[in-house]
């Protein structure tokens, strides 16, 4: 009879289950998807993140002088879905578990993740080029090519280099491993 009385008594004995949050700490799960963050060192400026972004939060614009790409993520339209993190080929975007995003209206348009991805300079011709995906490129390259050097030059110079190599060695350079 009257099972709710039992519950009430148990509630009083157990004491409040409230966490201390506004006055103290709270529990934040490690894998909570919060504010997204970009590591400009790893970014390839490929733009897949802005392509898949559900909320249309990511804008990538090339700077006028061609020095690099400006990455702008407006937290006020990010849905924390994590698609950008999932699709990023270089693991440059990560969802941190920081959820302290509330801000006053005056900061509405400045509540952004702004990063500048600088284009590396070609060692040979000095032109700006898109960043390489270092590891993958290193894996895919075969033959007597200086990988360390090839990663630092632009596609045009790379084409030139391989053409020069072919002319010099008179052997056909291909990625077919069985022939080499």
């Amino acid at each position: 009879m009257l099972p709710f009385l039992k519950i009430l008594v148990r509630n009083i004995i157990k004491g409040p289950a409230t966490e201390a949050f506004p006055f103290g700490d709270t529990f934040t799960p490690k894998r909570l998807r919060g504010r997204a963050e970009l590591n400009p060192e790893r970014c390839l400026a490929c733009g897949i993140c802005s392509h898949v972004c559900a909320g249309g939060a990511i804008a990538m614009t090339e700077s006028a002088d061609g020095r690099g790409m400006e990455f702008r993520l407006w937290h006020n339209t990010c849905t924390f879905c994590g698609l950008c993190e999932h699709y990023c080929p270089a693991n440059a975007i990560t969802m941190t578990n920081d959820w302290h995003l509330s801000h006053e209206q005056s900061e509405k348009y400045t509540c952004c993740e702004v990063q500048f991805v600088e284009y590396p300079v070609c060692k040979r011709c000095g032109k700006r080029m898109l960043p390489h995906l270092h590891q993958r490129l290193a894996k895919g390259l075969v033959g007597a090519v200086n990988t360390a050097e090839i990663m630092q030059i632009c596609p045009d110079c790379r084409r030139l280099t391989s053409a020069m190599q072919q002319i010099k060695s008179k052997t056909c350079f291909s990625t077919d491993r069985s022939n080499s």
Partner: protein
Amino acid sequence: MHKYLKQFVHKSPWLYRINAGSCNGCDVELATTALIPRYDVERLGCKYCGSPRHADIVLISGPLTTRVKERVLRVYEEIPHPKVTVAVGICPISGGVFRDSYSIEGPMDRYIPIDVNVPGCPPRPQAIMEGILKACEIWKKQIMEVA
């Protein structure tokens, strides 16, 4: 009113929520902050009230759809001054995933002066409480200024 009494005013923020065409996700989180013992907002003196006439802090969720716009504006006008508005979720702030839809009138700050934004889809209950605390600070400033 006496200055000594004024400093207690912000300890009793009564919350009123307006759903401006929200998908209900943010409303669920608001209900969570209201009802679950773990995030007891009553500690801050908050009380969810049913009538807009009793409200101090307005929590708006939803991207302001065309159909609901007039009603939202009317309800907002019925709230007595001084009032502080909190936009909960990304929809009222920017339109969120519904931005540029034919049936969306938002973002909210085109029609209603917003004071605090709490982004998230939906925001965590703790983030909402943080927003409410920020709103309380703004409210306190407003009251102290009215001499």
